[in-house]
């Protein structure tokens, strides 16, 4: 994986569009998970991912370890997401739960049900801290290992495990409470 990344980065530096697309396909899911864990808004997470990939491409010579392109990219994603969140908090006083949802999509049937589930999950994740959300999304959505999550968060593996444990417990409690309220 890392060797392949290094080769793809080398080709992308030379302007190879297919190599860059492969890098996008390899790392977009993780980038999205990190962005979503910061922003909690899918449309914003997508915008940040696009912005981060373009920034990464423009600064590709600054990537000192092409074999660790993924980790380098996720740092850019996180910084961009944090910048956007700061800008949003200055620009708008609207609480995030009021704008949850992907704008401009036609939801029908199964899509609508999926969309509702997504909105519930996002709303429940509002009550988690950033490291808890990141640990949860990277581990349970992206399938990262505990040590990989720990490396991304810059914490010991035991701490990353604790974040994940707390996130799952709090999320289940939130989602359970919602179901009980509906019942």
């Amino acid at each position, binding site marked *: 994986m890392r060797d392949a990344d290094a080769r793809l980065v080398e080709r992308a530096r030379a*302007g190879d569009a297919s190599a860059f697309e492969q890098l996008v396909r390899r790392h977009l899911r993780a980038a999205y998970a990190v962005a979503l864990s910061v922003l909690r808004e*899918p449309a914003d997470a997508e915008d940040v991912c696009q912005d981060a990939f373009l920034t990464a491409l423009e600064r590709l010579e600054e990537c000192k370890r092409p074999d660790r392109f993924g980790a380098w990219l996720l740092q850019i994603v996180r910084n961009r997401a944090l910048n956007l969140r700061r800008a949003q908090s200055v620009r708008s006083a609207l609480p995030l739960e009021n704008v949850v949802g992907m704008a401009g999509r036609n939801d029908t049937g199964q899509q609508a049900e999926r*969309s509702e589930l997504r909105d519930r*999950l996002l709303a429940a994740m509002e009550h988690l801290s950033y490291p808890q959300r990141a640990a949860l999304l990277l581990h349970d959505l992206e399938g990262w290992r505990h040590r990989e999550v720990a490396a991304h968060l810059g914490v010991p593996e035991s701490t990353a495990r604790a974040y994940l444990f707390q996130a799952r417990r709090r999320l289940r409690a939130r989602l359970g409470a919602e179901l009980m309220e509906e019942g």
Partner: protein
Amino acid sequence: MDEHPIDLSPLCPAADPDHWERMIKAITTAAAPELARRAAARSVFAVIGHWLRPALAAGIVLAAASAATLSLVDREVEIQPTPTAGLEEALELGEPVSLWLMENRAPTTSDLLLALEREAP
């Protein structure tokens, strides 16, 4: 510990393949100008690189040829006869004097007597 993963698949952007492909397309389309710029820059370097080797080889050959020519010129200068022989002829000096000059020494008393004897009619 709460070891059971939560199903977060509704949050997965790739769950809707069309939407996922649109996301990738949006990124690659936005990246196209930068990729084109990089490809063009690399092609300029490639052209320079293409001409660099022959130019270097020609330079090395020229340098070697120049060095060889210079060393031959130096050798020719070294083997040229000393102008002493020509000078003594130009001044029309007799044999004993030219001998002293060739041996680069001052004449002894006996040399001078010998010279005077030869000069005497």
